[in-house]
């Protein structure tokens, strides 16, 4: 569908209509920060958010989810969770991260639990209106995204330009009523805005290109930065929990009160946590903080790249904000590796 124009009042009505028809999750204020939550009314939606504490990943792969139910006598059943929902106001870098997740969970072996949720999600993306202090999406090529969404919203001055790319997007947009085509001026301003985003979303600056990262890491395995920085690491996992492109998980069984039936759940796990690579008997394949700390950057910057073709970082800067020690920022780390090249 060609790009349309959406005035602010129409936008408001559209959101209200969406809320009536669908379960719509969007960024809302949470204290001094922002978080995705179920929208009760259009006024709660904060499209001017800089970044949310957690990425929308929590709707595609919740902190804990049931995989199967079982009985101790040996019956197993799949549980496919996931109800239709609309993610509204997703920033481009998060759209890019969802595309990475799609790739990760379908490559080689398709993860039917992820897909069960993913297929029911409609994404209304929104170009960034205010940048967070840690953001470097422009360095990672995710300041704007060409696809990966159903609808894209861009605020140009006093109106939104809205563009649907899929049938699901068209259906959502139909609730806005009849819309005018976006005029050339608005479209021009949108182009300009996309160009500006390359500056706006570069609050931190990576001193090399994304494509150079795997090679940089190839040369840096023994770099002293790993040890130096990881001395401050708590193995607290905050950096990986908040990351839109971290997907590791743990699996645990729990029986119910009948002591016969139960559920097997997966929950977020992270390679920074002490026990992540620990096996029965106590041997830990990444015993040292520096090994765990280094692994995270390698997994993101090289291993997943070699496997799936993307650097598993979209430059949202959430990890940098979440790390109490201030050592999790990929930009700072890569730049310090670059210094000694």
């Amino acid at each position, binding site marked *: 569908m060609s790009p349309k124009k959406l005035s602010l009042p129409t936008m408001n009505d559209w959101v209200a209509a969406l809320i009536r028809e669908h379960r719509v999750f969007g960024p809302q204020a949470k204290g001094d920060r922002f978080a995705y939550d179920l929208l009760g009314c259009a006024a709660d939606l904060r499209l001017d958010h800089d970044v949310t504490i957690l990425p929308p990943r929590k709707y595609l792969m919740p902190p804990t989810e049931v995989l199967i139910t079982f009985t101790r006598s040996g019956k197993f059943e799949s549980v496919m969770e996931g109800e239709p929902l609309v993610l509204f106001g997703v920033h481009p870098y998060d759209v890019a991260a969802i595309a990475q997740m799609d790739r990760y969970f379908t490559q080689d072996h398709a993860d039917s639990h992820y897909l*069960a949720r993913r297929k029911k999600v409609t994404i209304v993306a929104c170009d960034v209106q205010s940048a967070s202090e840690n953001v470097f999406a422009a360095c990672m090529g995710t300041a704007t995204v060409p696809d990966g969404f159903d609808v894209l919203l861009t605020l140009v001055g006093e109106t939104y330009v809205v563009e649907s790319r899929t049938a699901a997007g068209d259906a959502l947009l139909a609730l806005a009523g009849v819309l005018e085509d976006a005029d050339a001026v608005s479209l021009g301003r949108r182009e300009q805005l996309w160009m500006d985003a390359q500056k706006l979303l570069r609050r931190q600056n990576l001193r090399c290109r994304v494509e150079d990262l795997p090679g940089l890491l190839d040369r840096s395995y023994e770099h002293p930065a790993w040890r130096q920085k990881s001395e401050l690491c708590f193995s607290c996992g905050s950096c990986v929990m908040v990351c839109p492109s971290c997907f590791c998980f743990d699996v645990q069984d729990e029986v119910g009160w009948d002591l016969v039936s139960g559920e097997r759940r997966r929950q977020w796990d992270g390679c920074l946590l002490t026990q992540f690579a620990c*096996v029965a008997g106590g041997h830990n394949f990444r015993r040292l903080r520096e090994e765990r700390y280094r692994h995270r950057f390698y997994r993101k910057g090289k291993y997943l790249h070699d496997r799936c073709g993307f650097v598993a970082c979209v430059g949202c800067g959430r990890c940098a904000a979440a790390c109490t020690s201030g050592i999790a920022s990929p930009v700072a780390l890569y730049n310090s590796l670059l210094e000694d090249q």
Partner: protein
Amino acid sequence: MTAEALICSDRDLYLPQPATVVSKTVLTATETLFEIRLDSGEELKHMPGQFVEVTVPGVGEAPISVSSSPDRKDGFELVVRRAGRVTSAMHDRRCGEKLGIRGPFGTHYPVDGVMRGRDIVFIAGGIGLAPLRSAIHWVLNHRQDYGKVTVLYGTKSPAERLFLDELSDWSCRPDVTFMETVDRADANWKGNVGVITKLIPTAGIDAARTVVAACGPPIMYKFVIVSLYAIDVMDESIYVSLERRMKCGIGKCGHCQINGLYACTDGPVFNHADILRVQEAI
């Protein structure tokens, strides 16, 4: 949703198949042999060196190598060491009780590939004999397809030796060279004493014709590789099986990563040439 790549497979790879413990044989103080049959009546269809994820419902899952040969059609065998929650719970299961099985997963020893027609040296350390046994049985069942067959086995003490009947069978067979050693002998032990690497120079290995299949603890590999180099075995001719913490078995959970490799899908059986420069491997 846009990506056409999101083809949904209806198969839930996390769903175990119900299976039954057919028999249990105590091998040592900590290891027990389980004979297991899928309730569907289907074959497991594994290759030697592959593993299954075994569920004890309510306790969890653990990756366990299949210890029987694919030739065996009525069920399969697992050797389980009591190590933690799941493995202990397995030991507590009685015959007739239910387990869940996913898999087989992972790579296997190339018994159907480069090993054919070559001399084969099996090097097993401790419970490493369990996965290798699958390959040994296969090779002995198809003896004519392979050259000279050597089995080297090392354990910490005589009490930890597995499959005593089979060991003595192998040592009697004219078409198998079987040698073993223990780190520490006891009063009744008459055989070799010392680390397994000692056996390598005396086993009469013709490096050029040989493929080595090894399985044992990480520390064993370090020394075995050095000894194999000493008799000019090439990296490409060495296969090792690596163990890591695992949750999914299908390359999603992230736990078993060995640098960029996954022990579950790229392994557990690796060609040594492929992991030479993988820092976390050995």
